[in-house]
């Protein structure tokens, strides 16, 4: 097959893909022009590409995540447009398969995961009173490996062809015999590579939280968001290897002819499904637990009350973490494992509702008697509670095994997991964004515009997904690309599509809100715009590169709240003689090149260009070995430099 035919099969030469080609080229040309015209290349390289500052890495994760939210959202709108009318020919069946596959994969791996890491990077070190994460270079490697994996996945639809076996990529549909072409290779390689970055981040944040907390901050004095990051990172550690194995073995089957999940030579496709969900269920908790952590911070701050039931909040986090490893079979009760096995996993699934319920009540009781301020962050928190309760209740319905035989793979299930992932994860992360935005960027997001974005998105969400429960009950199965008018599903589908467009409008308002606020929004000069309770609010916004001029000492939960009560205005000020020089991690370009080398290796594997793949892997190894010989990974920031920054922020006592 000629190179050109391999790179541009018919699937990427459809009008929609060609149009995207044009837009991508225009965007890239525009970026190149702006960077060159305003001489920003050096700035980009020094300030961003080679940075090891967790706060900047957090910003890069956030930008990547919002771009991916746009791509995944456009995919969703295309799907909903196709389903708006019976017998529609807007998308063909193959096209539809590709788009629901990229929609799901992007939303889980390239939107939700990086948004989580964006918030970890932005605030976890600040909340625990640390100057950086445990391994700043590894943190940059995590980001660049993720970013290049994201690029690898995203180019599939214009070069080579999209994956089309769903975001779960069940064997044997992903085997080469049934799925020729490079689409699934893209899926496998991109996720395997980004998994490396995810695992490294998990290790990094676990070590950071376990080893770098401020003096006096015992585990039970940590803010809840830090707790949730701790257990979520542990989930990464223990769940992601299962995904690596599931995808790795599929990759070996496709590229090297092994027989793990084939229908011949003794392979077992259900082995894939088991491995995938042993990762997959903990995965949804490792996404939603940080959202729970955010809600705990937000509800406490905006109710001006300490969090109700802190120990039970921690206990329920731990309970959910443990239980999450014992429920994976509920994704395939219909495999037919037998009544005893299914009963076990049905009950273990229902058990999760108990610790989750504890958390819901604790949030409500935190508001009880508090002086609640209805900020946008708080609106997302308030909206989350009823939304998540509905999603949780339908989850319990799905856990009833005989019922599941009816609901399985129907739109009821589609509605359920969107209910959890949007109502839980997306609402949570958006709440966190509005809450921590001033800390990350030094300006507030406009509240009035934020309310518009919120109401559009929130109403759009309910209009989109509630009809889908009923479509599922009426027999509409997931992933069908069209239906006939005789089924009577038309009206509900049209309502759902309308809702999706309202959500899309909400996203546009959100982007407008960000851009407008960047230009005109209120600057946060206090560093503590919400009258916050935790240590990140003791710093100027945005925090200086070393975070804390002096490392804080903690005596109570809500450390900053207590410091303000006791110390008043001087709580965040130092005497000049307390300031010492600070060892800072030195910027490096190695992480960027490691990402690039992984990209080469991945692209080489996707197209079976073995020389390219070998060059990529050799590059990774060479860069690692180089790192082993590099002892100069820190440099000293002088006392004078620290004093200058602190004086400029008005943080020095006279």
């Amino acid at each position, binding site marked *: 097959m000629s190179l050109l035919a391999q790179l541009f099969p018919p699937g990427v030469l459809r009008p929609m893909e060609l149009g995207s080609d044009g837009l991508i080229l225009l965007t890239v040309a525009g970026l190149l022009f702006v960077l060159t015209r305003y001489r920003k290349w050096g700035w980009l390289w020094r300030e961003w590409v080679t940075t090891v500052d967790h706060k900047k890495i957090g910003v890069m994760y956030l930008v990547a995540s919002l771009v991916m939210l746009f791509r995944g959202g456009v995919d969703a709108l295309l799907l909903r447009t196709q389903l708006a009318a019976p017998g529609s020919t807007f998308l063909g069946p193959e096209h539809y398969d590709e788009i629901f596959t990229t929609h799901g994969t992007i939303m889980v791996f390239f939107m939700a995961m990086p948004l989580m890491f964006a918030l970890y990077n932005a605030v976890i070190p600040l909340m625990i009173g640390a100057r950086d994460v445990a391994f700043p270079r590894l943190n940059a490697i995590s980001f660049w490996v993720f970013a290049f994996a994201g690029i690898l996945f995203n180019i599939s639809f214009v070069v080579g062809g999209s994956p089309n076996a769903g975001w779960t990529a069940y064997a044997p549909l992903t085997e080469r015999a049934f799925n020729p072409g490079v689409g699934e290779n893209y899926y496998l390689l991109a996720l395997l590579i980004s998994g490396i970055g995810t695992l490294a981040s*998990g290790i990094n944040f676990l070590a950071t939280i376990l080893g770098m907390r401020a003096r006096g901050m015992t585990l039970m004095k940590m803010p809840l968001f830090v707790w949730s990051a701790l257990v979520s990172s542990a989930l990464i550690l223990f*769940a992601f290897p299962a995904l690596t*194995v599931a995808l790795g073995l599929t990759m070996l089957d496709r590229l090297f002819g092994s027989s793990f999940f084939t229908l011949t030579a003794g392979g*077992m496709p259900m082995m894939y499904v088991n491995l995938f969900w042993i990762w997959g269920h903990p995965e949804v908790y490792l996404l939603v637990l940080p959202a729970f952590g955010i809600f705990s911070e937000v509800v406490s701050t905006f109710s001006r009350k300490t969090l109700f039931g802190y120990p039970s909040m921690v206990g329920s986090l731990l309970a959910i973490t443990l239980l999450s490893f014992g429920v994976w079979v509920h994704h395939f009760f219909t495999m037919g494992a037998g009544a005893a096995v299914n009963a076990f996993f049905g009950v273990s699934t229902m058990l999760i509702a108990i610790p989750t319920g504890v958390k819901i009540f604790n949030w409500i009781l935190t508001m009880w008697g508090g002086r609640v301020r209805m900020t946008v962050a708080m609106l997302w928190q308030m909206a989350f509670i009823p939304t998540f309760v509905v999603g949780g209740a339908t989850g319990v319905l799905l856990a009833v095994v005989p019922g599941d035989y009816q609901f399985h793979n129907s739109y009821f299930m589609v509605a359920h997991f969107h209910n959890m992932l949007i109502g839980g994860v997306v609402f949570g992360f958006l709440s966190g964004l509005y809450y921590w935005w001033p800390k990350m960027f030094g300006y507030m997001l406009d509240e009035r515009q934020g309310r518009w974005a919120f109401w559009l998105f929130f109403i759009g969400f309910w209009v989109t997904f509630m009809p889908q429960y009923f479509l599922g009950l009426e027999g509409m199965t997931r992933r069908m690309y069209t239906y006939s008018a005789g089924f009577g599903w038309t009206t509900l589908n049209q309502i759902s599509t309308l809702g999706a467009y309202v959500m899309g409008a909400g996203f546009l308002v959100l982007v407008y809100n960000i851009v407008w606020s960047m230009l005109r929004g209120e600057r946060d000069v206090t560093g503590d715009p919400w009258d916050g309770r935790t240590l990140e609010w003791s710093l100027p916004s945005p925090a200086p590169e070393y975070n804390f001029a002096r490392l804080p000492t903690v005596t109570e939960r809500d450390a900053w709240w207590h410091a303000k009560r006791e110390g008043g205005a001087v709580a965040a000020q130092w005497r000049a003689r307390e300031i010492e020089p600070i060892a800072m991690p030195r910027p490096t370009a190695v992480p960027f090149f490691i990402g690039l080398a992984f990209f080469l290796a991945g692209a080489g594997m996707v197209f079976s260009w073995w020389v390219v793949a070998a060059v990529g892997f050799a590059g990774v190894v060479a860069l690692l070995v180089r790192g082993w010989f590099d002892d100069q990974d820190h440099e000293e920031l002088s006392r004078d430099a620290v004093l200058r920054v602190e004086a400029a922020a008005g943080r020095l006592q006279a």
Partner: protein
Amino acid sequence: MNTPLEAGRAGRVPLEFSDHHGALGILGFWLFLASDVVLFSCLFAVYASYGMRTAGGPTPMDLFHYGPAFAETLLLLTSSFACGLCVYQLRRRSRNGAAAWLAVTMLLGLGFVGMEVHEFASYVALGATWHKSAFLSAFFTLVGTHGLHVSFGLLWAGSLLVQLWRRGLNAVSARRLYVFSLYWHFLDIIWVFIFSAVYLAGRIG
């Protein structure tokens, strides 16, 4: 006398734990090992499910022999012992001692990899390639993943040897050496499981 506990009690923290950042690195590596345990667990689970699925091809009983597997075990376990002696020399602050035992560790590890490659080649010569059956796919993947880990460890040890030679012992090189020893002992433990679950169980049938 040289365990971390006693050294600490004597008021002397081992070199590799002497700075906070280095100690954090060691914690981070333990966390990595925890996730690597899960990786191998999944591969063991796959092998356990596929051990009998030979698709009419060679069975474990046909392929495996005690002799080579035992020799590989001896090589790797002895190399792990040498690695322990290397850390002992590190605690005594003897650069040359540590380097010498690291070299022995590498030589024995190299012998292990060589034998494993030879073993794999002999199976392939018998027609037992991994295309043949799910059992063979799982076998080559499980044992091969371990072998790749060992090979990577050899590269790592080589770079440590160069560092010891050029820069001597300091908090950084001590931490790297200690972390390598954790990795090496970990691979040893995985091998013990492979020896039991693959070779012994395969002979017993």
